[in-house]
Structure formats: C-alpha cells, structure tokens
C-alpha cells in the first residue's frame, strides 16, 4: 500500500468512526438543538414548509454529490441552516442528509469539551491559515463524504462577512477545489438572513425571523489547475451575490443596511478551506 492509499484508508476509517458515533448520539442532540433554536433563542424560519420541500426535491432530483454553500453572518449559521432545511426527525431517519460542517477550530474546538461536542455534531474542524497539508486533509475528507452521498455545508466567503454582505475578501478556494474534484457536483447555494441581521454578529438577534432561499447550480469551468478552482468558487459566490440582491429586492424594508452590496467576481479567491 503506498502513502496515498494509506492516507485514504486512514481517512475512511476516521470518517466511519466519527459518523457512527455522531449517528448514535443524534437522537439526543439533534432534537435538543432544534428546541434550543426555537424555544431558547426564539428563532423562526419564514415559510419553512416551502424551504424544506425545496430541499427534499433537490436531494431527490439526482444522486450526484451535493455540496451546500451558504452566506455567513453568525457563528451558528450552520445549525440554523440545518434546522431550516429539514425537521429533526428527518435527520434521525436520513442521517446522511444532515450536513457535515467545517467550523473554525479556534472558535469551536478550542477545549476538550468543545472538541468532543463538535465531533459528535458532524463537524470537521479546520484551522484558518493552517498548513497546506492540514487543509488538504479536510478537503479530501469533505470530497470523500460527498462522493458517498453525504452532504456538507461550507461557507465560500471563508468566514463571517465583515461587511454584512456577500464578501470576496477571504474567498475559500478550497470550495472550488472540492467541486472540481467531483464529477457532476451540484452546489446548493443557501442565502439566509434574519430580519434583524444588519451585519455580522456572533448570534442572530433573539426572536429573529430567518428568511432562507435556495438555488441549485452545477458550476463548470474549462480552465485548468488553480484557475479552474478559482473560476468555480467565483461562480458560487456570484450566485450567492445574485440571491442577496434578490433577497433585498423582495424585502426592501428589512433590516437597516450596513453596507452596499460588494462588487462581484472581480477579485481572486483564497487558498484556504477554513470558515
């Protein structure tokens, strides 16, 4: 067995163990997380039945890999998005439809307890600005799980947008790399914003109403190497930018605008895969 095979074999083993433990714990923490979001924070998903029906339709439309790419404004976006896309019982039955996340290690996996929690919550922590090898391992893991029909959620902005609008400042080109490596990979772009969410923050405001829109695209590029990767991630961020414009045109009274929309697809992407 050569080095690459051995590394892949390790990755598969690691994935199987984490997936099994997370699956065993899911009946406990998934409903609890949903309750905390609904009753603890008082969040609501606007038109949640339509959002969930659309997610079901997209999932059943094709067996091609499905990567979720979302805008990023708060620390708990990934939990809120998972809750918005399907009810807790769905994840108990169709565990692989619950997205894996790649939270930033220093925010979420900084203590032993937190590391354990994110491990059981289908998270693969990534260190922003970590070594190329570490980032490559996480990207390989995400590519592997997508290839076997599981779903992952990544934030192509590479972190919470400091402008409160879709930002290309820290673009995560690892997202493009994953898409490039998976034939026919579909990208479910999710634009989510609370009615009170003027800009980035740690948490959405208590009692906020989340508006969620979905658009499934299949990015393509004739370019090669890193240019292809950049091209793909720019298509994704471009779609999220379009969805943002649509969001504000549909809801012109919501929330106070912190900044004008960022110019799209003029700058390059980032090499990191972290969020």
């Amino acid at each position, binding site marked *: 067995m050569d080095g690459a095979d051995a590394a892949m074999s390790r990755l598969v083993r690691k994935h199987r163990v984490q997936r099994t433990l997370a699956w065993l714990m899911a009946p406990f923490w998934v409903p609890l997380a949903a309750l905390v979001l609904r009753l603890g924070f008082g969040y609501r998903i606007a038109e949640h039945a339509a959002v969930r029906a659309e997610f079901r339709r997209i999932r059943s439309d094709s067996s091609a890999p499905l990567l979720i790419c979302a805008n990023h404004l708060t620390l708990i976006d990934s939990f809120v998005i998972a809750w918005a896309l399907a009810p807790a019982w769905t994840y108990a039955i169709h565990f692989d439809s619950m997205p894996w996340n790649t939270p930033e290690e220093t925010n979420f996996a900084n203590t032993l307890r937190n590391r354990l929690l994110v491990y059981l919550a289908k998270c693969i922590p990534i260190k922003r600005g970590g*070594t190329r090898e570490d980032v490559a391992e996480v990207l390989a893991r995400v590519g592997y799980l997508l290839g076997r029909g599981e779903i992952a959620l990544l934030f192509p902005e590479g972190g919470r947008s400091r402008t409160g609008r879709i930002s290309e400042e820290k673009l995560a080109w690892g997202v493009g790399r994953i898409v490039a490596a998976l034939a026919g990979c579909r990208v479910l772009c999710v634009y989510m914003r609370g009615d009170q969410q003027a800009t980035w923050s740690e948490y959405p405001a208590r009692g906020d109403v989340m508006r969620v829109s979905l658009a499934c695209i299949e990015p393509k590029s004739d370019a090669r190497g890193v240019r292809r990767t950049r091209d793909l991630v720019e298509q994704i961020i471009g779609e999220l930018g379009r969805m943002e414009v649509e969001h504000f045109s549909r809801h012109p009274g919501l929330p106070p605008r912190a900044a004008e929309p960022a110019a799209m697809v003029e700058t390059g992407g980032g*090499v990191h895969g972290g969020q």
Partner: protein
Amino acid sequence: MNQAEVQERVVKILTPWVKNEAALKSVSAETNILDDLKVNSARLVDVVIAFEDEFDIEIEDEDVDSVNTVGDAVGLISSKLG
C-alpha cells in the same frame, strides 16, 4: 534559470501580498509564506496564479499542498520548469 533567480522572482511576486514587510528584508528559503511573511491564506491562489503567469507554468491544486515556505515555492516552480 537557477534557483537564486527563481527565488528572486518569487519574492518579487509575493511582495504586494506581504503584511510583515520586516520579514521581507531577511527572506530566505526557510521563510514561511503564511506565518513569517503574513500573506493572507485567502490570497494564496492569486499568488499561485501570478507564479503561473510569471514562469509560464501550470500548477495543480495538489501541488500547492506542499508549499509552506519560499523554498517550497521555488522548488515547485523549478520542478515545473524542468
């Protein structure tokens, strides 16, 4: 093109993205691009594309995984130049 010439051009390409300008003065093959020069990791793709343009080579995503230092970049580019 020898390694010293490649390194000189690599440093020139990196310069606009370097946040720690003091580190540029003592740059060597061991200088870490992210940790020492403080190049934003999100901007590395632009750096790599600039390498491609400057040296007329093509760099794959996987190639970039082993690039941590200026010397790694020089080695990668030299191997592509043959």
